[in-house]
C-alpha cells in the first residue's frame, strides 16, 4: 500500500499496523469521549449550579468536587494510569490493552472537560435562568432546557478542544499496551528514527484533528445565535 512512496519517507511499518492503529485511536477516542463527555458535562454542570448564589447552591458539594477535579488534573497521566490499574481491572477485567485504556482516558478527560464546560456555562446570561425560575422550571429543567441549550455553541467548541486533547492523550496510553496512531508515531517513528512512519502517522493525526475541529467549528457556528 505504501510502497509507491519515495524511499526517504517510506514508512517501515505495514499498512495493516497503520490501519489497526487508526482503528484503535478511533475506538479509544470514541468511547472515552462518550464517557468523559457525559461525566465532564455532569461535573461541569454541578460545578456551576452548586456554586454560591446559583440555583442549587451547595457549599459542601462545590467545595468537595472542586478540589477532587483539581487532584485528578494534577496527577501526570502516566501516574494516573498506574494508580488506576486495580480499578481498571475491576471494571474491565484487564488493565492492559485498548479497551482498558478507556478508563484512565476517561479519568484524564472527564475533569478536563468539566473545567471547559464550567467556563462555557458560566457565560449564560443570568436573565435566562431568572426567566426559567420565574416560569417554575425545576432545577433539572433549568439545566437541561435553559442553561445547556443557551451554552450549546460554546459547549460544542469546548468538547472539540477536549476531543483533540483526548487524541493527544491516547498517544500516552501506549504505556499499557493500548496502541493507537500516536503510539505508533512514538514507538516506530520516533524511537526507531523512521521518518516515513513519523510523517505518515503525524499526517493521519493532522487529518483526524483537522476533521474534528472543522466538525466542531461548523456545528458550533450552526447553533450560534449571536
Amino acid at each position: 500500500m505504501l510502497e509507491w512512496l519515495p524511499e526517504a519517507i517510506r514508512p517501515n511499518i505495514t499498512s495493516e499496523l497503520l490501519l489497526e492503529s487508526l482503528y484503535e485511536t478511533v475506538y479509544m477516542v470514541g468511547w472515552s469521549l462518550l464517557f468523559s463527555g457525559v461525566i465532564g458535562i455532569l461535573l461541569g454542570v454541578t460545578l456551576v449550579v452548586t456554586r454560591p448564589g446559583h440555583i442549587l447552591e451547595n457549599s459542601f458539594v462545590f467545595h468537595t468536587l472542586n478540589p477532587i477535579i483539581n487532584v485528578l488534573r494534577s496527577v501526570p497521566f502516566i501516574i494516573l494510569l498506574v494508580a488506576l490499574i486495580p480499578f481498571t481491572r475491576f471494571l474491565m477485567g484487564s488493565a492492559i490493552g485498548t479497551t482498558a485504556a478507556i478508563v484512565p482516558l476517561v479519568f484524564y478527560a472527564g475533569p478536563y472537560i468539566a473545567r471547559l464546560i464550567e467556563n462555557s456555562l458560566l457565560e449564560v446570561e443570568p436573565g435566562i435562568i431568572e426567566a426559567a425560575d420565574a416560569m417554575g422550571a425545576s432545577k433539572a429543567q433549568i439545566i437541561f432546557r435553559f442553561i445547556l441549550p443557551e451554552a450549546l455553541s460554546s459547549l460544542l467548541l469546548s468538547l472539540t478542544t477536549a476531543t483533540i486533547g483526548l487524541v493527544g492523550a491516547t498517544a500516552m496510553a501506549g504505556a499499557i499496551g493500548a496502541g493507537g496512531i500516536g503510539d505508533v508515531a512514538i514507538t516506530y517513528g520516533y524511537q526507531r528514527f523512521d521518518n516515513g512512519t513519523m510523517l505518515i502517522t503525524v499526517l493521519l493525526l493532522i487529518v483526524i484533528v483537522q476533521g474534528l475541529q472543522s466538525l466542531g467549528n461548523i456545528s458550533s457556528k450552526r447553533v450560534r445565535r449571536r
Partner: protein
Amino acid sequence: MIEFKQVTKTFHSGNQTVTALDNVNLHVARGEIYGVIGFSGAGKSTLIRSANLLERPTSGEVLINGVNLATLKSRELQKAKRNIGMIFQHFNLLQSKTVFDNVATPLKLTRTPKADIRKRVTELLSFVGLSDKADNYPEQLSGGQKQRIGIARALATNPEVLLCDEATSALDPDTTSSILHLLKKINIEYNITILMITHEMSVIREICDKVAVMEKGRIIEEGSVLSIFSNPQHPTTEKFVRSIIPTGLPARVKEALQQKEPNRRIYEVTVTGDSSHSDLLRSLIQTFGIEVDILHATMNDIQGTSFGRIYFDLRAEPEILAEASNYLKSHPLQPKEVTGDARVAA
C-alpha cells in the same frame, strides 16, 4: 392575592448600600390590575421581582394567595411559580430557541401535549402579531417584537397572576393599546390578577384599577386610579398626573396673557367629574353680555369621567369684567383668573 408586608431590600456594592425597597406594604386584591409607577431607579423592578422571589427581600415578607413563597419547599414553589406569569423588562428570551419555542417553553415545562402547545402558541403569536416570525430567532427581531414574544410567553400557561415589568415600553401606541386591551380582557374573563410596573401614566389610566407611586424605594402614595388622577397628594404623583394632564399654561393662553389687553380676562376652570358649565356660560353671555371663547381645554377620560381644565377667554368692557369677576368668585366651579404670574410653566 399579592401582599407585600414591610418588605425591605438593600443592595451592597463596594462600600455603597442602596435601599431599593424601603419598608414597602402593598396589597393587590384578587382580580385587580394594580399599577406601580415611579421614576427610573425608584425600585419598581425590585418590587415586582420580589413578588416571585427573583429577589429575596432583606426583611419582610411577600404573600401570594396568603402563602409566603419563601417558606415553600422546592416543588411547591415551582408549582406556585407556574401560576405566576412574568414579563421581564429586558425580555430574557432564549437566544437559542425560535420564537415559537420561546413561547412554547413554559408549556413544555408542564408536559403539555404537543398538539395543545401548537394550538396555544399559534394563537398567542397571532395575537401579538408575530405569526410570520414563528421560526425566527430572537436576535432577528426588533425591540418591540422581542417584547411581544415576552408577553406571549408569560401568557402561555394562563397564569392566575401576571407580573409585568414595563410590558409595553418598547411598543408603539397602537400595539400597546391592543396588548393592554388583551390584558384587560383576560383580567375580566379569567379574573387574573395583574401587577403592572410602568413609567407611563397612560398605561395606568388605560387599564389599572389601583395605582401606587414609588419613590426612592418607598410607596409614597396609593389608591384608586380615579382618586390619584383627580387628587394627587404628593408632588411626585402630581408630576406623573401632569404628564398626561398638563398643568402648565398652554402656549395659546400664555400668548393671550402677554398681550395684556384691559378688556380681556382669562379664567381657568378645573373640571372634576360631571361638572356642568351651562349656567356659567349662560350667566356670562346672557346676563353680563360678555364675549366668551374657549381658549384651550384638556380633559382626560378616566374610567368614565372627565378630568381636566378649561381656559375661558372673556372679553368685555373692563367694568363689566370687574362686575363678572365678583359673580365668578362665588360660582361653585371656582373659576380662577389666570394672570400669568401665578403659575409657572412645567
